[in-house]
Structure formats: C-alpha cells, structure tokens
C-alpha cells in the first residue's frame, strides 16, 4: 500500500515538474489510481471474506508512530470510490481543459496528490497517520479549489475551505489524542474494538465530531462547500463524490458502531445531519447555477449519510453504506455532466439552458439516470439505498429514529424536487433550441456515462452490489444484516414512504412557482457567510493587536522579558531547592581558588564588568565588555582548556570588530532618553539575574548525582572517534548532532543579519531620500570588472 501511495506522490511530482507533458499528463497520472484499482481487484477475495490486509512500516518508532495501513471491506469500498472516481476525473480533465493549457500538468499533479492523500486516509489505521492524510487532503484541495488563482473568488473560496476544514482538523487532532490516550492505543481498529469511556474520551469524541462536521460541510460549517464551486469541474466532481467531504462521513461511519451509545453522540450527529439535509435541500431548490444546485444537494445528502451512520444501528449502517456508494456514483456523474454542459454550451445557468436533451442525448441519458438515482426512483441504486434507510429507521422505533425518519423523508422530498429541477432546467426544451451547441467528444462524455451505467446496473442487479456492500457494512458493524439489497420487499411501510416522497417531491416541482415566492419571502439570512467573514475580520484585528503588544520593538523590554522568565522559573526553583537542602552539603568542598591567578583575573573581570555598565561612551563600554571576554579566556587557560580559550579569544575579537562596525551607526555617547523599561527596574532585573547565575554556579557543582560524562568521553575519543583532541571529538562526533543544529543556527543568523541590514538600508533610502551606495558612482560591484 505504501508503494501505491508512493506511486501517487511520484506521478504527482512528475506532472508538477514536467509542465510540457500537456495532454499526456492526465493519462500518465491516471496510472496511479488505475494501479490501485488493479491491486484492489487482486485483494478483493480475501478482504471481502473478512480477512483484512495489513501493512506496517516503522515511521518514528521512538514515538510509537507507525505507517499502518489496513484494508478491510469498508476500506475496500472507499478505495474503489477514491481510485475509480479519481481515475475518471483525471481522464475527464483531458477534455475539460483546453489542450494547449500550460498548467494542465500542475492541475493533474495536484489532483493526483489529492487522490493519494484520500487513499491514505481511508487506508490508515494509525490515528496520526489518519490525521496527516486528513490535513493533506485539506492542503491539496486548497490548491485545487484555488487552481484558477487569477480569480479572486477562487482564492477566497480556497482559503475558506482550508481554514474551515483545517480548524476542524485541529480540533480533531486534539480529540484523537484524547481518545488514543484514553484507549492506550493509536491503532484505529484497536480503539474501535475496545472503545474507551469516561470524560476525557467523550471530550475527545466531541472534538473529533467537530472535525468530521467541518470536513463534511455540515451545518453550520457548510459554507465552504458551495463556495468551493470556484474549482474546475473535475475537482468538484471528485471532491463531492469520493474525496474530502466523504472523509468526515467515513470517520463517523467508523466510529459510530463503537461510540453511538455515548450520551451526546446520537442527538448531536442526527441533529446536525438532519439540519444539513433540510437546509441543503431547501437551498438547492433556489439555485440557478447547476453546479451550485448540486453543491447544496451534496450538503443535503451528506447530512443524510451522517444521520444513517451516526445512529450506529446495524440496519442503518448497512443503508448508509449503500447510500454512500449510490451518492458517489450519481453525484460524480452529475458534476461531470454539468462540466460537459458548461464546456459545450458556455453556461451553467438553468434559466438560459434549453433543449440540450435532444442535442446531447447520451449526456442527457446519463444525467437522467443519475438524477433519478439521486431522487430515489426505482430501479436505481439510489432507490435501493433510500428504501433500506426508510426500512431501517421504521423498524428501529424510538423517538430519535422516528424524528430521523420524518426528517429524512422531508429531506428526500426536497431531493426529488431539486433533482427534477436539475433535469428540467438543464435539459428540457424544444428540439432545435440548442442546435448551435457543439457535440462533445466521446471521451469527454464517457466517464459520466460509465458512472451512470454503474448506478443502473447495480440497481437492476442488487445482488452484484450486495457482494460489496454486505461485507463493507459487516466490517463497520459485525451485527449488520447479512442479506443484501433487494428491489422488491413486498408492500412495506418503506414502499409507502417512498411513494409519498416521490409524490410530494413531484408536487413541489410542479408547484415550483409557488415555492419560489415562498423562498423569496422566507429568504434565509446568509448568516453563515456573514459569521465567517466577521470571524476572519476579528481574527486579523486580534492578530494585529497581539503583535502590537508582544512585538513592542524595545530591546530592553525584550531582554527584560527573557531575564524575568529566567528569574521566575529556574530562579524560583533554585531558591526552593536551596531552602530544602541541608546547609552543610550546600557548599561542601568549595575552595577559595585553585591558583593565585584566578582571584586576580576575577577582580579584573569584575572591574571591567562594572566599568562597562557605567560607561558613558559606547566605545568604552564595548571595549570593557571585550575585556570581560578576554578575562574569561584567561581563566580557561589557567584551567587548562586551550580549545575553549582559543575559541573564546577569537570570538571576543570578532565580536569586538562587529560591535565597532555597528557603532558607526550610533551616537558616540549613550543618550538619556525615555526608556520603556525604567532605569531602576533594569538595575533590579540585572542584579537579580546576576545573583541567580552566581548562586547557580556555586550550587551546581555540588549537585551532581550521576557520574561525569567527561571520563567516558576521554576513554572513547581515540577508539571511537579516532581523535586525540577530546573537545573536537565531542563537537564533531559524540555530540555531532548538536553541532549540526548550531551550524544551522549560525547560517540562519547570517541570513538574518544580511537581510535585516539590506532591508534597513532600503527603508532608510526610501525614508531619507538617500540613494543606497550600490547605485553610487564608486560602487565596487559595478566597477569590479572595469580595468
């Protein structure tokens, strides 16, 4: 499985790095999902028999992070959708985009990466791996939604999708950590096998739900999905049918059988799902843009899925699995159809489209099959799924199930109505009205036709679908019913409800003029959008305010903050430790000095330090500071540490030079201006830190509890590192990783100094009207090549 994900990444990288691939990029990239399909077909036998395929690779074993992939029957269903719809969307984009479009490779690369992330998500068994893939789908969908980055609404929609889903993702991460901690495992299927209980686990569960709702565009976090219609159509088709929004449903489906009995779960999931179903359906009825109509329809259908999975009842889960498959097939078909219509007719506005049904019969047939499946008309897969859902809810009984049933029926009535609206608006009309619309290439229609045909075949031959769906439901919940879908159950209440649904939906469609006036009167406030905008604005203002407080721009304040922290945390701890220590042990074995040179140097050091603090001239202060450094070097020499002394001397010298260079920018003497941090507080902080450091140095030597490492280093230096100089052996070998880090820090500091000075010079030039020297006649750079 790792190899298949690697193939996605590799092909994505190839497509991104090879912009001239042009028309070949979609075909090339489709190889990755095609390989997944082949692999899944190969593995299907044992997996559907209930023997999951598991692959485990160490990632960061020290942290318990593992790349664990697990393919069970539900994962197989999801993988089929992810790879199948992914491959078709890629093939489709070959015709959707203009052939000479230079960024087709970029598009295919991101779409392939998106497919790979989604594949990883449905296969992941480790919770952190799941989270990583989850966020990868957010990032790649951001790039895809904002693909046409010259359009401002595309950029805005992409940002909104990213913010909403990744904020939800962060909540989910916290939730997953809580759940994993409570369960004592990071494996998803072990977590589900032994679901933890208790306050922490329940809080975690609530956070995970927030993430799932955000990802699956559930009310009130649904605003980003209709906005994401700014994406190119292949992306919309994929995003709505198989990827991204299905992730939240997927997670709820996984968790529900284990956690549905937790108090808040069922009311929360069913409530949110029903609200989404009704709001989405209601708003779909008033859209004129075919794509927007479908987008609101997706919100509605995702709500339906949430209700079915969220109940966590075996029968409802089985119905949910069937609806998941049906929704993927018809929603992908419909989006692909809209893409073709938009491409050929140049508009998606159902008020302007007319007569397309006669002009593009194959496309219209696919659209009719898919929309009928969406409306739940027999003998299509959507009908079977909805029938089973009604049946499950009716049979369960109980207040919640009945409320859910009523809501689902109402939502399905809306679904029938907007399906009819879609077909009527998109395709109806007198023959010849659309004779000017060019016919699409066969390959352009083929993906939509394939998916629509699949919906019809699986509907007519439900046994075929059951082969896949029964094990998938069984993988979620072992108690799920073993009998599959059937077209005819006899005269059941569900059949009656279906008939009622279709009749009421048809009634809504026929009376659409009345519905439209009612909607116009009732016009729901665009509250969600406004809340999002206000939230964004508040976030930006808040960030500006926090930055203003934290980044005061005053060096004494920065230093004072750091030093006060030193005093507050380690300082207080040290004071506490000193008080708890027996007095005799505190300073045992302390001698005044090892040699007579030490006190002499120490005195000079102290004098220089005091001098530096009280000096009036900057240069004097710098020189005295240098004297302190040289004094420390002398102490190192006295102690027999030549490496340290050498380095100290050199560093001191170079710092002195850097100081002197910098001093040329500053006045000769320290100025007595108003400082944010008053003189008294600066003196107090300095004295406190000085005391702390001195006390620490005195006490640390007596506090050793383990053996010194120096002995071991001295022994190992020659045999292990091949070095006679133990200091160097430590630097480049034993603690080489530290040195690596320090070298990186030095480099970063160098970059910082250069950019700061260059930037400062540029700002100075702009403010002061002084042209930078670079352009001056005597510029060394310019004259270097001159003779």
């Amino acid at each position, binding site marked *: 499985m790792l190899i298949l994900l690697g193939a996605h990444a590799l092909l994505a990288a190839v497509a991104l790095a090879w912009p001239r691939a042009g028309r070949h990029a979609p075909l090339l990239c489709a190889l990755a999902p095609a390989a997944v399909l082949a692999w899944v077909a190969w593995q299907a036998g044992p997996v559907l028999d209930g023997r999951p395929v598991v692959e485990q690779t160490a990632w960061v074993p020290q942290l318990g992070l593992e790349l664990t992939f697990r393919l069970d029957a539900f994962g197989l269903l999801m993988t089929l959708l992810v790879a199948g719809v992914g491959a078709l969307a890629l093939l489709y984009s070959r015709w959707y985009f203009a052939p000479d479009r230079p960024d087709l490779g970029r598009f295919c690369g991101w779409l392939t990466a998106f497919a790979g992330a989604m594949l990883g998500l449905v296969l992941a068994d480790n919770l952190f791996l799941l989270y990583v893939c989850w966020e990868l789908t957010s990032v790649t969908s951001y790039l895809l939604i904002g693909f046409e980055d010259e359009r401002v609404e595309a950029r805005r929609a992409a940002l909104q999708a990213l913010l909403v889903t990744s904020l939800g993702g962060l909540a989910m991460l916290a939730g997953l950590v809580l759940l994993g901690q409570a369960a004592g495992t990071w494996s998803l299927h072990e977590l589900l096998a032994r679901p933890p209980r208790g306050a922490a686990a329940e809080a975690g569960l609530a956070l995970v739900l927030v993430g799932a709702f955000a990802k699956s565009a559930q009310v009130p976090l649904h605003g980003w999905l209709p906005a994401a219609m700014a994406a190119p159509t292949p992306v919309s088709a994929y995003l709505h049918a198989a990827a991204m929004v299905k992730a939240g449903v997927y997670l709820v489906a996984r968790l529900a059988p284990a956690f549905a009995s937790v108090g808040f779960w069922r009311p929360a999931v069913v409530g949110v799902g029903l609200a989404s179903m009704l709001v989405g359906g209601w708003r779909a009825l008033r859209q004129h843009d075919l794509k927007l109509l479908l987008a609101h329809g997706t919100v509605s259908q995702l709500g339906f899925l949430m209700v079915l999975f969220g109940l966590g009842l075996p029968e409802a889960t089985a119905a949910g699995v069937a609806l998941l498959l049906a929704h993927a097939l018809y929603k992908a078909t419909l989006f692909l159809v809209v893409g073709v219509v938009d491409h050929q007719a140049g508009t998606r506005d159902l008020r302007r489209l007319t007569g397309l049904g006669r002009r593009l019969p194959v496309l219209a047939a696919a659209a009719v099959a898919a929309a009928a499946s969406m409306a739940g008309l027999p003998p299509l897969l959507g009908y079977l799924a909805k029938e089973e859902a009604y049946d499950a809810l009716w049979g369960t009984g109980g207040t919640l199930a009945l409320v859910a049933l009523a809501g689902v029926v109402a939502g399905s009535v809306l679904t029938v109505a907007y399906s009819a609206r879609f077909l009527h608006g998109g395709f109806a009309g007198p023959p010849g009205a659309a004779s000017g619309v060019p016919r699409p290439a066969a390959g352009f229609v083929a993906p939509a036709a394939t998916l629509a045909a699949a919906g019809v075949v699986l509907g007519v031959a439900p046994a075929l679908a059951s082969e896949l769906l029964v094990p998938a439901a069984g993988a979620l919940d072992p108690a799920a019913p073993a009998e599959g879908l059937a077209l005819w159950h006899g005269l059941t209440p569900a059949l009656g409800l279906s008939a009622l649904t279709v009749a009421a939906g048809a009634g809504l469609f026929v009376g659409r003029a009345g519905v439209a006036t009612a909607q116009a009167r009732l016009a729901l406030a665009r509250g969600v959008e406004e809340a999002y905008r206000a939230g964004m604005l508040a976030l930006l203002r808040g960030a500006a305010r926090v930055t203003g407080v934290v980044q005061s721009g005053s060096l004494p304040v920065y230093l004072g903050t750091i030093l006060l922290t030193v005093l507050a945390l380690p300082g207080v701890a040290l004071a506490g430790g000193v008080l708890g220590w027996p007095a005799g042990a505190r300073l045992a074995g302390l001698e005044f000095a090892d040699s007579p040179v030490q006190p002499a140097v120490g005195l000079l050091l102290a004098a220089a330090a005091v001098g530096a603090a009280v000096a009036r001239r900057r240069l004097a202060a710098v020189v005295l500071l240098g004297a302190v450094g040289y004094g420390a070097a002398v102490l190192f020499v006295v102690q027999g540490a*030549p*490496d340290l002394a*050498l*380095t100290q001397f*050199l*560093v001191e*010298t*170079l710092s002195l*030079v*850097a100081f002197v*260079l*910098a001093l*040329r*920018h500053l006045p000769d003497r320290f100025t007595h201006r108003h400082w944010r941090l008053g003189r008294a507080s600066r003196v107090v902080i300095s004295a406190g830190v000085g005391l702390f450091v001195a006390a620490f140095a005195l006490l640390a030597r007596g506090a050793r509890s383990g053996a010194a490492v120096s002995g071991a280093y001295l022994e190992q230096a020659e045999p292990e*590192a*091949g*070095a*006679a*100089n133990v*200091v*160097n*052996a430590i*630097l*480049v*070998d034993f603690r*080489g*990783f530290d*040195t*690596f880090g320090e*070298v*990186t820090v*030095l*480099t970063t*500091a*160098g*970059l910082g*100094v*250069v950019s700061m*000075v*260059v930037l400062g*010079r540029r700002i100075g030039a702009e403010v002061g009207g002084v042209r930078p*020297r670079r352009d001056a006649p*005597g510029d*060394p750079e310019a*004259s*270097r090549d*001159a*003779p």
Partner: protein
Amino acid sequence: MRPAGSLVLTVCVHTVFHSTLAFSLYLLFAGHNTAGGGFAGGLVAGAALVLRLVEGGPRSLRQAVPASPLALLGAGVALVGAVGAAGWLVGGRFLESGRLTLDVPLLGTVKATTSLAFDAGVYLVVVGLVAAVLRTLGEEDVPDRGGDRP
C-alpha cells in the same frame, strides 16, 4: 576623493593575510588531535578577513572572498548535512563517523575521518558568517581605500 590608505598597513596586512589563512587551515586539520578545529579555524580566517576590511575597505574584502558569503554558509551547511547523511548510506546512523588510514610516502601515516569533512563544513559556515557580517555592516562605513580604482 577618499584619502589613500596607509602604505605600511597595506604591506603588513598583505604579508600577514595568507599566513593567517594558512594557520586557520592548520587549525582545521590539526583540530582532531590537538587544539583547534573547524570553529576556531573559521574564526581565525574571519580575523584575517577583518584585517583586509580594515586595510582596504569593502573592496579589499571582496577581493579576499570573491564568493558570496551566503553561498559559503549554504555550502557549509550542505557539507555538514551530507556528512551526516553519508552515515545512513554506509548503513549506520545519522552522523556515524567513518575512518580511513593511509600510508602516504613522505608524509607517513595519514588518518582521514569523515569528521574532517564535517569540521570543514563548520569552518565554511563560520567564515561565511563572518564574511556576511563584515560585508553587510562594513559596506557603508569603512571608507573604501586602496584596491585598484579605475
């Protein structure tokens, strides 16, 4: 017109400059067994660059280090990282050190460890940092003296 630099200073600096660089290289190579190392070596080389800056201004500094200081920094980090990654290649851990002992005529036994390359990376970073600071801070300030003016 800027005042001409002191001839004595120029001669002295040019006399000392190359021997200082040689000494810095000696510190780099000797560091494994006696006092020194890449850090100290790089600092000594940096001191040599300071001499050039004081003597001839930014132009003299540019002549001494024709490469971009940032390139030196990057090369140093890359070298250090490459040595670390080489540890993986030979099947060990990151930064696992290797060693090669050669009997070279005239020089006797020469012991080469991967640590030397690591230290060379540190040396490059330090020289690059000093050169970057001197070039950016020294650019406007030290009067441009000496060098070959057109």
